[in-house]
C-alpha cells in the first residue's frame, strides 16, 4: 500500500545523449533529433502478467519508458517478475495485460532491432558450434552478403568483445565470462539498437564481472546502443545505468525510479566511492530491504 506507484514518463534521466545519428527512419528525414531523444522510443504500458487465468500476478501494472540511447537497469527481489518482464519486452512471451511498444510498434515477436542476452550462456551459446559459427548464426540466414563478408563482420564483433583470437574455439574451451562475450558478439552482429540483458553477468566470477561491465559500457558508448539491463545486484545497476527502476516484491510493481547523475566514463574504483553513488546505494538498499520485509510479511 505504501509503495510508490509507477511514475510514468517521470524523471528526465541523466543528460548523456548517446544515440546513432539519423535514427527513427519512419519520421521524416532531417528533423529527427526531438523524436530520437523523446521518451517514446521504448514504452512499457501498464504491463501485467499472470501465468494462469486465475493465478497470482507475477507483476502488475508496470509502466516506464526509455529514450533511444538510454541505459536502464531493472532491479528487484527474486520472484518480482523482472526476468519475465524482459522476456515480454523481447516478444518471447505474451503479457496478460498491457503492451510493449518499440518505436511506436507493439512488440509481439522478437525483432532484429532488439537482441536478448540470456543469463544462461552455456545454453544460449550452442556447444556444437565454434565461436565464429555461433556468431554467424545470427546473420547467415538474414543477410544476402557473401559468407566471406559475413565472417568478416562476425570477426569484427569478436574483436570488439576481445575474442579475436578465439574464433575457432568451441565454447567448452572458454571460461564463462568468455562465453558470455560470445553471446554479446552474436547479438552485436545483428546490429541491434536495443539490447535486453537478463542478469547476463550473474554467473561469472567477480573479476570477470568487473571486466564485462566496463566492456558493456564501452560498447554502449561506442555503438550508441539502448540497453535494458535486469540484475539483482544493486551495485551493478548503479554502476552501469543512467536510471534504475526498482520493482517491488511479488506481485511486482514499480517501487521507485532513480536517476543516477554520475558522469561517464565511469570508473570501478572512483565512481563507486563518490558520495552521490554511496547515497543512492543507501537509498536503493533501503528500498530493497523494504521489499524483502514486505514479501516476508505477506508470505
Amino acid at each position, binding site marked *: 500500500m505504501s509503495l510508490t506507484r509507477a511514475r510514468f514518463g517521470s524523471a528526465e534521466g541523466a543528460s548523456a545523449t548517446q544515440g546513432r545519428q539519423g535514427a527513427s527512419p519512419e519520421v521524416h528525414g532531417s528533423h529527427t533529433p526531438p523524436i530520437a531523444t523523446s521518451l517514446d522510443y521504448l514504452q512499457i504500458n501498464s504491463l501485467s502478467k499472470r501465468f494462469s487465468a486465475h493465478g497470482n500476478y507475477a507483476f502488475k501494472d508496470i509502466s516506464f519508458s526509455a529514450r533511444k540511447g538510454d541505459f536502464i537497469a531493472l532491479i528487484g527481489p527474486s520472484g518480482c517478475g523482472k526476468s519475465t518482464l524482459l522476456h515480454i519486452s523481447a516478444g518471447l512471451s505474451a503479457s496478460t495485460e498491457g503492451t510493449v511498444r518499440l518505436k511506436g510498434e507493439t512488440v509481439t515477436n522478437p525483432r532484429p532491432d532488439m537482441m536478448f542476452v540470456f543469463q544462461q550462456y552455456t545454453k544460449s551459446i550452442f556447444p*556444437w558450434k565454434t565461436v565464429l559459427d555461433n556468431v554467424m548464426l545470427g546473420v547467415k*540466414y538474414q543477410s544476402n552478403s557473401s559468407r566471406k563478408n559475413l565472417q568478416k563482420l562476425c570477426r569484427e564483433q569478436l574483436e570488439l568483445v576481445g575474442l579475436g583470437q578465439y574464433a575457432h574455439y568451441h565454447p567448452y574451451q572458454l571460461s564463462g565470462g568468455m562465453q558470455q562475450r560470445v553471446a554479446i558478439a552474436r547479438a552485436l552482429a545483428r546490429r541491434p539498437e536495443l539490447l535486453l540483458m537478463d542478469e547476463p553477468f550473474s554467473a561469472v566470477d567477480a573479476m570477470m564481472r568487473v571486466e564485462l561491465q566496463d566492456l558493456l559500457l564501452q560498447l554502449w558508448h561506442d555503438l550508441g546502443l539502448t540497453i535494458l539491463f535486469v540484475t539483482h545486484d544493486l551495485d551493478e545497476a548503479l554502476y552501469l545505468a543512467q536510471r534504475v527502476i526498482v520493482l517491488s516484491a511479488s506481485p511486482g510493481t514499480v517501487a521507485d525510479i532513480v536517476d543516477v547523475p554520475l558522469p561517464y566514463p565511469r570508473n570501478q574504483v572512483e565512481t563507486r566511492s563518490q558520495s552521490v553513488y554511496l547515497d543512492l546505494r543507501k537509498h536503493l538498499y533501503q528500498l530493497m530491504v523494504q521489499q524483502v520485509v514486505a514479501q516476508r510479511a505477506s508470505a
Partner: protein
Amino acid sequence: MKIERWLFGSRISGLILIALLLGFWQFSALYMMDTPTWPPVSRIVQSWVENVIDGTLIVHVFATLWRQMLGYGLAVVLGISVGVAMGYYRALYNLFEPLVEILRPIPGPAYLPVLVLFVGIGDEMKVVLILVASFFPILLNTYSGVRSIDPVQFDTARTLGLNAVQTFRELVLPGAMPQILTGMRISLAISLILAILAEMIVSTDGLGYFTLLAERTFKVPEMYAGIFMLALLGYVLNRTFLLFEARLIRWHYESSGRR
C-alpha cells in the same frame, strides 16, 4: 609396481585374458575333453580360414550385412523422422506416446510369426523384422533428445530470427544428436540379432543360416567358425559406429568431461 601399471594401466590385461581363455579352450579340447562337440581352437580357425578363402563365409557375411543394413537404415530414417516430429509437437507426442509404450515392450522376435503371415518368408520379412525391432530404441531416444532441448535454446533461435526449418537444422538435430546416436547404437546390436534369428528360421544364406546348417550337418568346427565370424562382424560394426559417433559429437564428450 611397474608390471602392474603396464598390465592394468591399459587394456593389455584384457587382451591377455582373451588369449588365456583361448589357450585354455585349446588345451581342454586336446587333452581333457575328447569329444567332437568341443573342437580345439586351431581346428576352428582352420575351418574359418578355409571358408573365407573359398568365399563361402564372405558370401554369407554379405547376405547378412545387406539385410541388416537395409532394415537398420530404414529404422534410422523412420525413427529419427517420427521421433523429431513427436519431440517437436506436443500434440503428436500425446497422440503416439501411449501407443509406443504398449508396442515397445513386445520383443522383436514376437513379430516374426505375424510377418510370415503377411509378407511371407522372403527377404522382405527379414528386412521388416529388423526394421520393426530397431525402430523403437531410435524413436524413443530421438523424441526424448528433442524434448530435452532447453527452452533457452529455442528462445535463442527465436531472437536470432531462425524459421522452423533453420531451427531444426541448427538446433533440434544437433541438440538431440547425442541421444539419437545412443538409440542408433542400441539398435545396431538389435538389428544384427534379428538378422541372425530370421536367417536361422527361414533362409538359404546368411551367417545365421550358415551356423545353424553346420550344426545340423554336424560340421562342428564350421559352426564355431560361423560364431567367430559373428563376433568379428559385431565388433567391427560397433567400432565403426563409435568412430563415426566420436567425429559427430566430439563437442558433447568434451563439454560433459567424458573422453
